[in-house]
């Protein structure tokens, strides 16, 4: 057992009385961390980081991917991955330098004094051990349980405390029987099992749905407040950080660029990076009036161009079925009627169970506008997108494109339809073929549809790259050499190469860092105005919706629960579920500089 922690039983208030509340619990001084690359060079990941956490306090480190926030957190608990090591500075925990500790001392400190709630709930529980075993382990490793019966009893108590009902039964289950939210609750129970004085929460909820995220964070907040645990919250979400922490530390490229009281930083960011971050954070959405005006302008231009193009006869309906045009409402490019999709899922037995992914959904999409479909995981929004793209066949109902039922399409019509409706997917790492050069990726649709000759196709590729603000020199490069945001630009360029009418964006910006996300959203708006595009925007993130959508469809469990103009949804939500979603946006209620 560690020498600094005297008690071995369950925590009592007297434990905390030994701690001087005005002396720092954790103090990081000029911390340098670097990783060794394959070629043996040292790559710094954190440089000169300073940070202080007082007992019972919540401090948040905010930054984008690659900012060094997770590296800093892992250095504190001496669990840097791979070749990472501390190359300078001090990490003082209750005055003792962690970087100089021996392995045994560190083992004594972990769990007992410093707990960890890791990032990804899916990969952080060992799939072959029961939940009960994994929670009990945390108790036994720190001498908190007298025997296995006691460990079991306490483990059940911990799970209940973390908000998992029916804890006795849960103990006997395996991780794969749990949902993401349940696993995250289990990880919180593990992190707090030995009643640490400091809890490092590394993006504890970023893999979860917003409503679950809010519940879990609320719970964590109550729990740590009751126990007097200090929390070091690592997050990419400025709104979430400001909402949960008193003190903010903003990191950028391995350095701390600004730190101080959370609300002060939000109200008056000083460093240009922080300013940029505050301005881009979708959840803080300071510029609502401004955005609304901007959107109106975009839509006006887009509608003009799109309608003109439709009259020119460039649309599919003119190619395929001229007689159908007469009956169609010219402004509605997409009409979704009673769309239903039933999946057969193989259960444990020989008979397949039925699962209604999309249930009787109807709405229309106006030419030149953006319609957002919002929902949490399992709401059926992606299945809906797949049906619109004709990548899945509906079980019932129909999709009308320019007034024509897409289900009746033969091979030729379908090919023509593909040219008019293009997708942009979520994963910027997965949507480009790694064996294709950028040039080949963007050229592929042109070649498939036999557009132009080699020279004109190259001209189109250059033009597309220019439209998405990338230099034409990237043509010769491959996807693995580009960043996530750049790949998403390439995916946009590929989708636009054929000059489609409708672009279906399936979580197109969800995997990107806020600044890049903002850039891509701006780019999409710009292209919409220039090319008269219609967007069907599938997302789980209501905060993003406000920035780009004109109309919102809220989906829950396969059903469309609310459909209205964006402002109406945000100002006067009609349904409880929509209200829950709105309330769950982190930092939604915070006042920021833009409102002044």
């Amino acid at each position, binding site marked *: 057992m560690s020498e600094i922690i005297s008690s071995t039983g369950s925590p009592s208030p007297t434990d905390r009385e030994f701690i001087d509340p005005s002396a720092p619990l954790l103090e990081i001084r000029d911390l340098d961390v670097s990783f060794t690359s394959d070629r043996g060079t040292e790559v710094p990941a954190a440089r000169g980081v300073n940070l*202080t956490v007082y007992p019972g306090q919540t401090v948040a480190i905010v930054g984008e991917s690659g900012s060094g926030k997770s590296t800093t957190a892992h250095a504190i608990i001496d669990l840097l991955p791979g070749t990472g090591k501390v190359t300078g500075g001090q990490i003082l925990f209750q005055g003792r330098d962690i970087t100089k500790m021996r392995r045994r001392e560190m083992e004594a400190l972990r769990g007992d004094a410093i707990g960890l709630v890791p990032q990804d709930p899916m990969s952080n529980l060992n799939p072959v051990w029961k939940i009960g075993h994994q929670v009990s382990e945390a108790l036994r490793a720190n001498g908190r349980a007298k025997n296995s019966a006691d460990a079991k009893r306490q483990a059940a108590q911990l799970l209940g405390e973390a908000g998992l009902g029916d804890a006795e039964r849960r103990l006997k289950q395996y991780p794969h029987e749990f949902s993401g939210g349940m696993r995250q609750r289990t990880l919180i129970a593990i992190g707090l099992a030995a009643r640490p004085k400091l809890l490092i929460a590394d993006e504890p909820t970023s893999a979860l749905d917003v409503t679950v995220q809010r519940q879990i964070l609320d719970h964590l907040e109550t729990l740590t407040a009751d126990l007097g645990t200090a929390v070091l919250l690592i997050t990419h979400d400025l709104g979430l950080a400001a909402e949960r922490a008193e003190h903010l530390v903003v990191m950028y490229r391995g350095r*701390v660029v600004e730190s*101080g009281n959370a609300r002060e930083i939000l109200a008056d960011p000083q460093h240009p990076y922080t300013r940029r971050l505050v301005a881009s954070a979708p959840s803080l959405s300071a510029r609502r009036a401004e955005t609304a005006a901007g959107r109106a302008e975009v839509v006006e231009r887009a509608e003009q161009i799109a309608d003109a193009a439709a009259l020119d006869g460039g649309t599919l309906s003119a190619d395929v079925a001229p007689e159908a045009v007469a009956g169609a409402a010219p402004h509605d490019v997409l009409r979704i009627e009673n769309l239903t999709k039933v999946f057969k899922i193989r259960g444990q037995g020989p008979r397949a169970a039925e699962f209604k992914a999309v249930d009787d959904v109807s709405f229309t999409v106006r030419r030149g506008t953006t319609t957002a479909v919002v929902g949490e995981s399992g709401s059926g929004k992606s299945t809906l997108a797949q049906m619109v793209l004709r990548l899945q066949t509906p079980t019932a109902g129909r999709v009308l494109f320019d007034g024509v039922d897409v289900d009746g399409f033969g091979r030729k019509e379908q090919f023509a339809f593909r040219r008019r409706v293009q997708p942009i997917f979520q994963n910027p790492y997965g949507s480009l073929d790694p064996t294709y050069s950028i040039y080949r990726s963007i050229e592929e649709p042109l070649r498939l549809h036999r557009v132009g000759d080699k020279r004109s196709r190259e001209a189109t590729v250059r033009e597309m790259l220019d439209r998405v603000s990338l230099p034409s020199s990237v043509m010769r490069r491959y996807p693995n050499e580009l960043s996530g945001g750049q790949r998403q630009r390439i995916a946009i360029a590929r989708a636009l190469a054929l000059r489609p009418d409708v672009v279906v964006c399936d979580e197109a910006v969800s995997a990107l860092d806020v600044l890049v996300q903002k850039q891509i959203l701006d780019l999409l708006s710009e292209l919409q105005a220039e090319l008269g595009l219609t967007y069907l925007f599938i997302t789980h993130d209501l905060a993003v919706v406000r920035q780009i959508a004109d109309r919102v469809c809220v989906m829950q469990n396969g059903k469309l629960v609310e459909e209205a103009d964006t402002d109406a949804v945000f100002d006067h939500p009609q349904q409880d579920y929509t209200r829950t979603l709105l309330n769950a946006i982190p930092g939604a209620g915070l006042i920021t500089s833009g409102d002044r």
Partner: protein
Amino acid sequence: MSESALFEAQTRFVADLEETPLGTTDQVDESTPPGGLWLEAWRTLRRRPLFIISSVIILLLLAVALFPGVFATQDPTHCELQNSLAGSTAGHPFGFDQQGCDIYSRVIHGARASVSVGVLTTTITVLIGGVIGALAGFYGGWLDSVLARVTDIFFSVPLLLGAIVCMQAFPDKTVVVVALVLAVFGWPQVARIMRGSVISVRSAEYVTAATALGASRTKVLLRHVLPNAIPPVIVIATVSLGAFIGAEATLSFLGIGLNPATTVSWGGDINQAQNSLRSDPAVLLYPAAALTLTVLSFIMLGDAVREALDPKSRKR
């Protein structure tokens, strides 16, 4: 929460802009030369000693197999019993075997049989296994079920055992026959790996994207799925090339492989060497060493290629 900077160590801090300059969000890194998946794998490979050593040996082996006359002037089938088991003399560095044949020359000329069997068998297994695995993995459904059972059936007969049974039926044991027999029992492994690889690639978003762009099923399979599914097959092909050479030698060793009267082979010579093993182990040593070196270099090459093509080690 109105108390700002309650603690002295938490007063407002703003970094010096000089020290923390803002980069353009998301600029293109133009510092490295462009390179795709294959080019990068090649760049990784050519620096690896394992790759360099094994490919030098393999190139040498290929040269020996193609032009044995350049490396050994002696006729390997010219044997004089008076030289039986004689030690090394000038022009005969490895000495003579029991029949009085020049061992050096036999080792050199034995390369051709081994390499031909290895290359031929690997080509056939990759073609059969690759096609079956790709079709099963890509189309799924009943086709997959049927092909998976067929693969299971052939897989359930161990390579050596099946080959032993099969070889009996052929009175004329040529290189082609041995290669065909080994391929009959060798392809299921390639098929399984190809199937798994295709299944994992099939669900990638770029495959869905290609479908949405209007590419047909066949085009998607040939242009997107196959090129991305091939790396594990290359690895297994390299390693099994070595394994097939070993299997051929084992069959020859058992006396049911290549006909020793018509084909000079390492396995056959090792079989012959059994008789004089205790008196003169060197007779066994040379063909065995040649065989081991060959198999080893293919396994090392496979290892090096695996590391270079491993998706886990790829830069993201």
